[in-house]
């Protein structure tokens, strides 16, 4: 193992150790923090990842091959964006005394982005479909 990797690994371990020392100072909250850490893994490994696998399996059976790459792109762009938007779409932190917080029409905004993404997907799909069909044969006299 190269010296660089050893140094990098030790620096990382030291940083983790420091973080754990900081965490240890949060006695009384550790159980909930641990539950969030485990929950983060479970939500990805047991929920999100199988859902994507399921979508993939469905697409492989039901969707023509020219449509699949555009759908993958739609999922890769719109999926994470939707997850990122959960706190604003739900407006969970909104407060009556502070109208400057969460003051955009988030659902409308999300719909606009989604519509643009679907439009892009449709255009891409149409192009691919034409490519699959091959050039249109010349009309016979």
């Amino acid at each position, binding site marked *: 193992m190269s010296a660089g990797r050893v140094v990098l690994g030790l620096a990382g371990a030291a940083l983790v150790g420091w973080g754990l020392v900081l965490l240890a*100072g949060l006695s009384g909250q550790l159980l909930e923090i641990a539950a969030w850490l485990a929950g983060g893994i479970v939500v990805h490994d047991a929920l999100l*990842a199988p859902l994507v696998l399921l979508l993939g399996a469905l697409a492989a059976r039901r969707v023509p091959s020219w449509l699949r790459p555009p759908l993958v792109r739609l999922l890769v762009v719109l999926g994470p964006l939707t997850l990122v938007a959960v706190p604003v779409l739900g407006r969970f932190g909104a407060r009556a005394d502070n109208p400057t917080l969460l003051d955009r029409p988030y659902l409308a905004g*999300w719909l606009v982005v989604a519509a643009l993404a679907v439009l892009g997907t449709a255009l891409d799909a149409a192009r691919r479909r034409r490519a699959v069909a091959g050039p249109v044969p010349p009309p016979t006299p």
Partner: protein
Amino acid sequence: MSGSAVGERRLRGVAGRLEALLPRPQDFPSPLRGPRTAARVGGWLGAAFLVCFATGLYSHLLQHPVAWLPLPTRPARLYQVTQGLHVASGTAAVPLLLVKLWSVFPRLFVRPPRAPRRLLGHLLERVSVAVLVGSCVVQLATGLANSAQWYPWGFDFVRTHFALGAVAAGSVLVHVAVKLPLVRAALEQRVEDRPERAGAPSRRSLLRMTWLSAGVAVLATTAAGVPGLRRVAVLAVRSGAGPQGVPVNRSAVAAAVTDLAADPGWRLLVRGPAGSTRLSREDLLAMRQRTAVLPIACVEGWSASGTWGGVAVRDVVALVGGTPQDDVTVRSLQRRGAYRESTLPAAWVARDDSLLALTLGGEPLHPDHGYPCRLIAPARSGVLQTKWLGEVEVVRA
């Protein structure tokens, strides 16, 4: 045969059947998974985490200064940029992390080796990856929720986010150290431009859509802070509108200071080595007035610039024997809250644009912006720009 042996055999039978239900790494058909994708997406993800960790550390140091590390007091927009980067890099990390995890997901189903020594290494790697994934997911989730002032948890957000930030950053370094030879080898292999089979995107195309996803997420949420791009940020936590053109983090109602702040008998208590004095708003307005264009740059990533008018902190503390070599602590009228007081280090006290502000945009401060008097100083986090001041104290370093 004894009863316990039968029980053990049954248990093994059940475990075996369960194990047979789980997929194996080779059951995942997509050729797009694996090191070639993981190394490239992981590289950008690592860069995003590095920016996120560095800017987060800076934000922490601003709020909890250490004596041996002086921080820059200029440019005035410094914190606006660093904290904008903090939230933007965290947001970009969401699609990057999801694609990265997708690319290595089959590894979750690698069966543990039977040889005890190899088993130990396997378990160590498993634990380190679990810490890595858990801390990264929680950091991104809690950071995004905090930027929308949503706290669906009972733990102390600031301290937990800081501690887990160190855990996540350290885990990334360990992971890179372990995987470096694999990463190097993967980066030497070229990225295919053509799909390996019909109906799948090419690897190049998958990488491009990942970068696109990160870009779209950043634009839609955090571009509000970039001039000219505000309208694109349809998912930003703030439109940027607010009283006197500046959004509000904590309102006067939420801080329970409405009556105290509107009281005409309000006086600012100023204490220092040469004694103490009480100043009314009129007293403060009679002193030398200065104006400064400074941003309110919130930890949540949004920022808005305003033209503030008022008295320089150094001029006020000079009345009670304070000098630009002293720190100054300001306290709010609010009775509770983690940010009811803040300390302005001497480096800031020395600056003419560190103000006890009385006006915003030429008008008296709106109650939600800290009327009758608030602190505003360059290159500082919004939560340190204490509002509704009741007391200013010179702290000799």
